[in-house]
């Protein structure tokens, strides 16, 4: 079977093209549809808005790609982002009087965000690799814990960043580099680096090997526990980075911050062609998946074809379709 398809490059090419480029084709189709429905769709303002808003989920989804590729899962990232945002705001508010309002305080806040993200990822990773509890269970638990902690920190309400600090911090979300908003720049950088790490480094190769068959990886001298742990830590740090970009947008954190981000991130990873049960991951696909998800919402808002309330339904259909297409590809091989 394989011999036949390989000897007829035209057919093989077509087939691979469809599978590899499927998400891209879907993305282009959505862009064309959006442009056709509303001339403002391709305006600088709208494009920046869509990309900057998808940056949070996007940065997290890149980390999620590594976790899923190595056969894991992390449901806690949404709650984790809210918790990190809360801690970050509390720290900056507490330090502002003594350190003065300025970039110093914000830098400390950023370091705290990264440190808390790293620690949270470490907790998830250690529970999965050392205590040998299933990733689904571990992160279901920490999801509840982080969510509850932010509610407690905010005393059931909202934690707000002091307005003076917020004024200094604002440009991190609203301004940019050569007219490209910072969140977009960071998202792009994370995607490019992630793609290189996944494709070109032993770490990426080991992730795929572990997700493909943990036993084979173990027998091939791969440090399975350490690589697994690293994927959760990496994801935690990326959640920290996403939060750093998110806090200046609203300047607050509450128990409703980051709700359902984990599912959107996982959905983006799957739409992008990464296999849910691990063994194969594609970072650029994840980026495309994130864009597809946020474009659907954007188009529904701009056009009055379908009620925006049906956003979730359409996203759901897309996710299921993506998996069906993945399965077909498998059956064909």
């Amino acid at each position, binding site marked *: *079977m*394989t*011999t036949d398809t*390989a000897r007829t490059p035209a057919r093989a090419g077509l087939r691979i093209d469809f599978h590899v480029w499927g998400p891209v084709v879907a993305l282009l189709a959505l862009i064309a549809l959006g442009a056709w429905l509303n001339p403002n769709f391709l305006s600088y303002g709208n494009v920046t808005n869509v990309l900057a808003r998808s940056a949070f989920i996007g940065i997290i989804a890149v980390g999620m790609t590594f976790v899923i590729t190595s056969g894991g899962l992390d449901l806690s990232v949404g709650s984790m982002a809210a918790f990190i945002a809360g801690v970050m705001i509390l720290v900056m508010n507490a330090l502002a009087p003594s350190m003065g309002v300025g970039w110093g305080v914000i830098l400390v806040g950023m370091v705290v965000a990264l440190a808390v993200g790293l620690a949270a990822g470490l907790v998830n990773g250690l529970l999965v690799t050392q205590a040998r509890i299933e990733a689904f269970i571990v992160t279901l638990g920490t999801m509840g814990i982080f969510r509850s902690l932010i509610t407690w920190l905010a005393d059931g309400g909202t934690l707000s960043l002091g307005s003076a600090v917020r004024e200094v911090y604002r440009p991190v979300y609203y301004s940019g580099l050569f007219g490209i908003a910072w969140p977009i720049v960071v998202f792009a950088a994370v995607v490019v680096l992630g793609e*290189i790490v996944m494709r*070109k*480094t*032993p770490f990426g*190769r*080991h992730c*795929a*090997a572990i997700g*493909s*068959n943990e*036993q*084979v*990886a*173990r*027998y*091939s*001298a*791969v*440090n399975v526990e350490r690589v697994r742990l690293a994927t959760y830590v990496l994801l935690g740090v990326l959640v920290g980075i996403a939060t750093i970009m998110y806090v200046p947008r609203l300047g607050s954190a509450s128990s409703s911050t980051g709700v359902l981000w984990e599912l959107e991130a996982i959905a983006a990873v799957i739409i992008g062609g990464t296999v849910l049960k691990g*063994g*194969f991951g594609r970072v650029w696909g994840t980026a495309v998946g994130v864009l597809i998800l946020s474009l659907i919402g954007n188009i529904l808002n701009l056009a009055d074809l379908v009620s925006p309330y049906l956003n979730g339904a359409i996203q759901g259909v897309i996710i299921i379709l993506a998996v069906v297409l993945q399965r077909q590809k498998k059956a064909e*091989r």
Partner: protein
Amino acid sequence: MNAPAPDRRAVLEARRVCRSFGPVEVLHEVDLALVAGEVHALIGENGAGKSTLMKILSGYLEPTRGELLLDGKPVSFSSSAEAEDAGIVLIHQEFNLAEQLTVEENIFLGRETRRGVFLDRKAMKAEAARLLAELETRVGPDARVSGISVSDKQMVEIAKALSRNARVLVMDEPTAVLTNREAAVLFRQIERLKAKGTAILYTSHKLDEVARIADRITVFRDGTRVAHAPAGEMDEDRMAQAMVGRELSNLFPQKAPPATGEPVLSVKGFSVGSVVADASFELRRGEILGFAGLVGAGRTELMEGLIGIRESRGTVEVAGRAVSIRSVRDARRAGIAYLTEDRKGRGLLTAKGMRENLTLLALDRFARLAIDTRAEEEALTRAIEEFDVRAPTRQVRVGNLSGGNQQKLLLAKTMLAEPDIVIIDEPTRGIDIGTKQQIYGFIHRLAASGRSVIVVSSEMAEIIGLSHRVVVMRAGRVAGVLEGGDINEDTIVRHAMGLEGREAA
């Protein structure tokens, strides 16, 4: 079933049964008759065709030629369910029990008693309790299977068979997983079943056991019946003799003179979990050291302990220096590489291509920060050439390669780590004869080039044809180390079966 006096006529009989897998015939015109109230032992080396015949008798396989007679009338079973309906039940070596269900639920699985649309739990529980009591087990119908002992599971399997009114019970190495005491209980139950008129087919590698419980013995070798006799006429020595003794072809390269080099690996007092106890041996430079023994003797576990996959105790010295190996990485650093017997489960990523598989073990040789894909491709080209890997394309998924080519790729992968000591577990399992010869040649050249090789194999011919010295293991211990003229099937089997004096020092 109730006839207390054994009926001398065969309940189930196989006549001139042949079975082929693809072009290969593995069973050649064998006869076997099971008589009510008799234990019929079927013995033979691994791959002699015992399992195949058992599967044919119990409906899992159909014979290619020949016929089955049930009560003297020809029958053919198209599934194991049909055979079970006829009263023939196979008890698998690894049990077919749903671990999370209770004993009672397992006994009646798939044939639950009902009252209307609901399960009649009361009736089932009563029946299960009756069956279990009959088998003298203490386990109750409400116990969860995951929580009961291995011997109790065996009893549940038997109870399950009885609940299906089994007239013929086929038992595949039932004592392989039992302790001696548990086995004694099993033998008592077998006696009871016999007395009730059940015909039993029994396989085991333990000849003392066979001598003790069998009424009739059939010996298979290479898919043919080489001996059958009433148990009284066959002692353990004769059984062993009948099992071995096949001619060695010139599959194997001319043996190099035994290595006299310095020891490169010396293992002392090595124990792995509860499976391997106090094993000691030495491997010399340029030597091929065979590891023989029955399945379950602890050879694979010993090797996996050596490379740090399993927890172990004991001293290991590589080239005279004590090393502590806790992981495959440690083993690699010490220059030891291990080729697993489980190619698809532990050796290769079947969903990936050849390049990713080839370099996985020695990936650090191809990467500082980033992986040098071009160097990988070059390595693949060399590996394909050197090991004669025949793949339809370079991009083929490894799962689509033939077993022989997978094994060659696995060899190439292992050699890329440049080990000084290579441990090969079942080097030719499931591989055609041509590829076997290539692999033997490769192992031979490996040793000739000054590396040291351990070959673990259940194929006697392979051990004898390749090894300079042979370590025979039995029940987790080193039963003897054979050299020169002692390397023959008879001596190896006698050590493996525990018939040879006490442990050779």
